[in-house]
């Protein structure tokens, strides 16, 4: 198992949210959109200029800036990360 922030999660690796940091409107918006502890997420795409990214959770896709994704800590299962590396 390895933990990292969501902006560093490699493409296509399933992960689970541990904490949602940040504060104020952004944090509440993230919680409202379903990014809460134990939710499964995957990074699906990176924009042509490297930012923002598209993530998939709860059966839908949303885009989020990397600086905001940095507020979210996720953990991957060992096997899935090894498979990519």
């Amino acid at each position, binding site marked *: 198992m390895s933990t990292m922030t969501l902006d560093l999660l490699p493409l296509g690796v399933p992960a689970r949210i541990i904490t949602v940091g940040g504060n*104020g409107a952004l944090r*509440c918006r993230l*919680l*409202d959109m379903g990014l809460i502890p134990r*939710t499964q997420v995957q990074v699906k795409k990176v924009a042509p*200029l490297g930012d923002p990214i598209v993530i998939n959770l709860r059966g839908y896709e*949303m*885009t989020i*800036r990397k600086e905001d994704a940095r507020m979210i800590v996720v953990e991957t299962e060992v096997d899935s990360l090894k498979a990519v590396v």
Partner: protein
Amino acid sequence: MIIGLVGNQNCGKTALFNQLTGAKQRVGNFPGVTVEQKIGPVKGKMGIEVVDLPGIYSLRPYTSEEIVTRDFILNEKPDAIINIVDVTNIERNLYLTLQLLEMRIPMVLALNMMDELRNNGGSVDIAKMSALLGIPVVPISAIKNEGIAELMQITAKTAETKALPRQIDYCPPGPIHRCIHAVAHLIEDHAEQADIPTRFAAIKMIENDPAIASRLALNQNELESIEHIIVEMETELGLDRNAAIAEMRYNFIESVSRATVKRSNESKEYLRSVRIDKIMTNKYLGIPIFLLIMLAVFMLTFNVIGAYLSDLLAAGIDWLTTVVDNALTAYGLNPLVQSLIIDGIFAGVGSVLSFLPIIVTLFFFLSILEDTGYIARVVFVMDKLLRKIGLSGRSIVPMLLGFGCSVPAIMATRTLPSERDRKLSILLVPFMSCSAKIPIYAVFASAFFSTHRALVMMGLYVGGAALGILIIWLLGRTAFRGQPVPFVLELPNYRFPSMKSVLLLMWERARDFMHRAFTVILMATIVVWMLQTFDIRLNPVADSSDSLLALGGRLITPLFAPLGLADWRITTSLISGLIAKEAVVSTLGVLMNTGVEQLGTVLGQLFTPATAIGFLVFTLLYTPCVAAIAAVRRELGSRAKTAAVIIAQCGVAWLCALIAKLVFGLIL
């Protein structure tokens, strides 16, 4: 009977609204809010009206849309609400549903996109979901018009019987349950007095909602006790208050979803979207494809379809003008009144109306791009670039439209979610040189710079855009600093747009524009006609150089002396440019006693190459036409702010023209 329509963005809310009401919609404004809502009578149901509330994800008071919806339900007390949810994305959609349930109001759940779910082998246990949520649940497909009649019937019955949702207490036993119930108990009397549902008020207190807190009018002691209860819950649970509430809701939603919805993992629509996105948001192709699409939309609008229709309409208006003119002459109407009708109203409103086809065509393409889901991808692709100037990806559309016509561009800012971005975009649009200025550039470029025509044109376009970006960048760091709105955007699956929605939107825009053409613009053209026709003693003038307009031109001439443009004919043409930018050239033609074709040969009498550059820079940057001013006024919603924008634009134009004249005076 009033029914509120509430749902997430991209859940088919507008499609449902259009199915319910047809074309009989009007824009309504509820007191105290700036966001408009559409209202329409329900087809075939006497006395029932639906209100289309803004698409939202939650009822937190962070965006104006959320506040509008919440205040609408709390204050307007609709007879019932229809909560429309996208059944293919049920978990996130039900999050709003749970918050709506807390507001204790008759409510029906419309499960949209059932056809899509079924086609992918999914199903919903409707009866069980209805039992678990405590409200009627109706499966529908808004685009295919399935289940709409049943939905309306059940909603009408729910509203008539004032059937409240069955109270469900979904908080799990434990710290959060104790916290909610303790707070609810504490504020019960206050909530009843303020006429706010107790459980809703309790959760809002836990979420630190200042608006609800002030409405409850709690005293210091009570506030401290509440805070104490919350902190206790936070320590016991190891989660802060916001996360705790969100988690509680999602846990309940997951259990409802597990018990009632059977879905296949990856739908056909999702897989299709992934395939399309491989190309549309490709690392190398994404931006070029976007530029190509915008180019195609522009070509089709300004050179092919829109231009053709515009010419056709202009010809029609010309024909009508001639017919009316002849009829009035035959009737023997007072020549002055006839001049008012023909030269004032017909010419003025006619020239603005001929923009209508262009605007409608542009919005046709734009709403297709929006409804298919492509605009969301554009935002994703362009966000990083636009963030450099302090805007977000969404502003790219109005910016590009500005090169065509400021009016639809300013109208397109309405889709921006952030008030700050919207205002900045409205200010940015006029810097994009609109197509009506092309005749001015063309005449001057060939008269003074025949060897460098393309360079001059390019310079004006690029210079205007660059200056606009610079100014927005500065404003973003000074006057408009503010809290940036969180950038979290859903990327919906690509969908075929519903032609009905596209056509209704076109009709809406057309109506909006025509309304303005016959109010603000009609007034403005009459005023300009009077200025052109009368002298200072209100006698009709024989020679246009005696008119009030020329007098006005002469009055402001000294202001233009530093630019080397101190000729009343120049300043008069600039004033008439406020009606439409094309009028600059035609007025110069009239005042120089020559047709537009020969204008180039006589311009040498008025301008040197350096002052011509100054003049071009001024026309590039100064206040756009009345139609654009009216659009700015409408979107900013303030006369004072609009006036400030106009003055600022003229000031910037003057300053830049001076610099350009001085610099080019040295070079040329």
